[in-house]
């Protein structure tokens, strides 16, 4: 399959026109040296057909839920983007409140309202399929992002690849430990497919010398991770590394190590500000402490929105756009860390510090 690569900054500022993509691929462009802008987006060779719709567009966004910081940053970025383009489109946001059936009802409502396009972060990758089928048959552009959905009843998809992200953090942890050591792993909500994908990717990178002592769910919450890690510390006198798919888990686990007076060890996570602040505060007194994190960019929604507008302007777009975020480690974390902002901020964001301060104020 032909792969098309583009820089995130170009994707965001120039847009994701197919002609532009081909041009970038043809010129063999690589990622920028600037850490924050060097995340790249790889588009599939398979293209989605654009539909030219004149006049002011109506775009619906079915958000699976809105109860965490990442979703808030994502939604705020999308609303900011929509505010800049009020002459071109109206963004209608509906919230599934974490309920699968409510989200399906929300999607049906958007179809009945005859919107031009639907963006969606699905609560369930399978439950939304019938509604997506109904929408695509009605000629509505459907763009799921962040979490994949089953089937082919959608127009274009934007997101990261959990398995590849896990492989990145898994390899980094393996390398930080020199391919040898005992590790524990903490994941997100029980049974979620994102953690399963990440963990599968991570395990594929561990050398035989890496011994996995335990894998536990910690719900991406510091308090849960701290409690679980305290038990694991009692059970295992030697823990050389911690693999996590979320920064909250890593921060909670590391705080449990601090409480148990154990020296901090290499850990992985995402772009959770609290983890970078913790690393910054503790690295001097813990020589073995290192971090390796891969973000889940909260600007995904903006890319999805711009892709949708391009499609509704008649441009063909890649069917799948996979975001390859940057590895954030001890060499570049200071470019991402926001010391003056709360731990809960996810730092790979389009929002400025002032906007974040206002949001978290």
């Amino acid at each position: 399959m032909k792969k098309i690569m583009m820089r995130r900054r170009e994707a965001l500022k120039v847009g994701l026109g197919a002609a532009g993509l081909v041009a970038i691929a043809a010129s063999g462009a690589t990622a920028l040296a600037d850490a924050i802008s060097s995340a790249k987006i790889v588009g599939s060779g398979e293209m989605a057909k654009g539909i030219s719709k004149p006049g002011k567009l109506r775009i619906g966004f079915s958000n699976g839920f809105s109860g965490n910081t990442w979703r808030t940053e994502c939604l705020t970025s999308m609303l900011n983007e929509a505010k800049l383009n009020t002459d071109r489109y109206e963004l209608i946001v509906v919230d599934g409140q974490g309920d699968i059936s409510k989200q399906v009802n929300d999607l049906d409502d958007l179809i009945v309202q005859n919107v031009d396009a639907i963006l969606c972060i699905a609560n369930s990758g399978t439950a939304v399929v019938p509604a997506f089928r109904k929408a695509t048959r009605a000629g509505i552009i459907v763009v799921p992002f962040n979490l994949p959905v089953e089937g082919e009843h959608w127009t274009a998809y934007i997101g990261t690849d959990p398995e590849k992200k896990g492989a990145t953090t898994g390899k980094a942890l393996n390398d930080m430990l020199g391919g040898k050591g005992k590790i524990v792993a903490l994941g997100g909500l029980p049974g979620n497919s994102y953690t399963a994908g990440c963990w599968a990717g991570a395990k594929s990178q561990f050398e035989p010398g890496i011994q996995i002592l335990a894998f536990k769910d910690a719900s991406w919450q510091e308090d849960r991770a701290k409690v679980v890690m305290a038990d694991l510390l009692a059970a295992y006198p030697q823990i050389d590394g911690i693999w996590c798919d979320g920064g909250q888990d890593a921060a909670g686990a590391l705080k449990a190590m601090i409480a148990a007076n154990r020296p901090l060890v290499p850990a992985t996570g995402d772009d959770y500000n609290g983890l970078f602040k913790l690393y910054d505060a503790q690295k001097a007194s813990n020589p073995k402490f290192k971090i390796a994190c891969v973000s889940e960019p909260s600007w995904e929604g903006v890319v999805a929105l711009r892709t949708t507008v391009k499609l509704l302007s008649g441009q063909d777009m890649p069917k799948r756009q996979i975001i390859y975020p940057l590895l954030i480690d001890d060499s570049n974390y200071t470019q991402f860390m926001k010391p003056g902002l709360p731990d809960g901020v996810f730092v790979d964001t389009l929002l400025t510090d002032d906007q974040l301060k206002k949001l978290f104020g």
Partner: protein
Amino acid sequence: MIGARASTLFRRSPVWAAVVLLYIVAAIVSPAMLKPAQMLNILQVTAFLGLVATGQTMALLTGGIDLSVAGVVTMTNIVATSLMLGQNQNIAVAIICCVLLGTAVGIINGLLIAVLRVAPIIATLAMNSILFGLALVYTGGAPHGSSANAFNVIGQGRWFGLPASAICWLVVAIGVAYMMRRTTLGRWIYAVGANEAAARLMGVPTRIVVVTAYALSSVLAVLGGLLVTAYVGNPSLGIGNQFLLTSVVAVVVGGTALTGGIGSVAGTIAGALFVTELTSFTNIAQASTGTQYVIQGVLIAISVVAYRMLGARTAA
């Protein structure tokens, strides 16, 4: 002789016997459970659930249930961290605000149940939803702030070699246990739970008792929320969710009847210890989260059946 004593212990305080037996089994399977650090860790973590479950006991003793405790813990965490902002001088204001809010929530729950005759499960579930919604509105989905260092001592520190959180919990729980056994209010709560109509005929102000019980439940959930906030130091919109089920499990395992009127705070102390011990053991034994949920559900069912059988035998 030993067998007879064990049998007596089982009959009088089956949950305490279960706590001891579980610990022995856990220690055999995983010797790590015998480490003093792990014992202290279990005590430290039990304190959060213990306080919330002590409040839940009040609600269950009246014949009701308080499913808003999860929302109250989350509200406490969000409000406390946003008011403290990591500054020691803000601790008092934050605590007072949380306690006042908790009291208001409890009084509203009580009024809905006692005056408007809304079923407790509906009233408190609705309140839980309202509190989570308010937390979202208040934070805009982006909670901010942190707890103050001096405050964190009660969640992370040690007093006399013991976890400060456990000392806070046990002092409060013993105080509530005393109130339940030795004061008029305590006896009224039991009376209302056993037979509300009969209690009313005896002159017990049943509505006031129910409102007071739910207010106490909420305030104790606030105290649990403050402890868990001090433990983790940060705000989290999902922090209270874990207490929705576990607080009921701890109370039921501790011997309090879901029908009201029967039970004790002392039993709940043991119930909270048992639940935390079990979670800790299953963590160490690498049981999956799914298995842990199954065990919790089975535990509720077994406890209800076992206490009913014990109650029937005692009555006979």
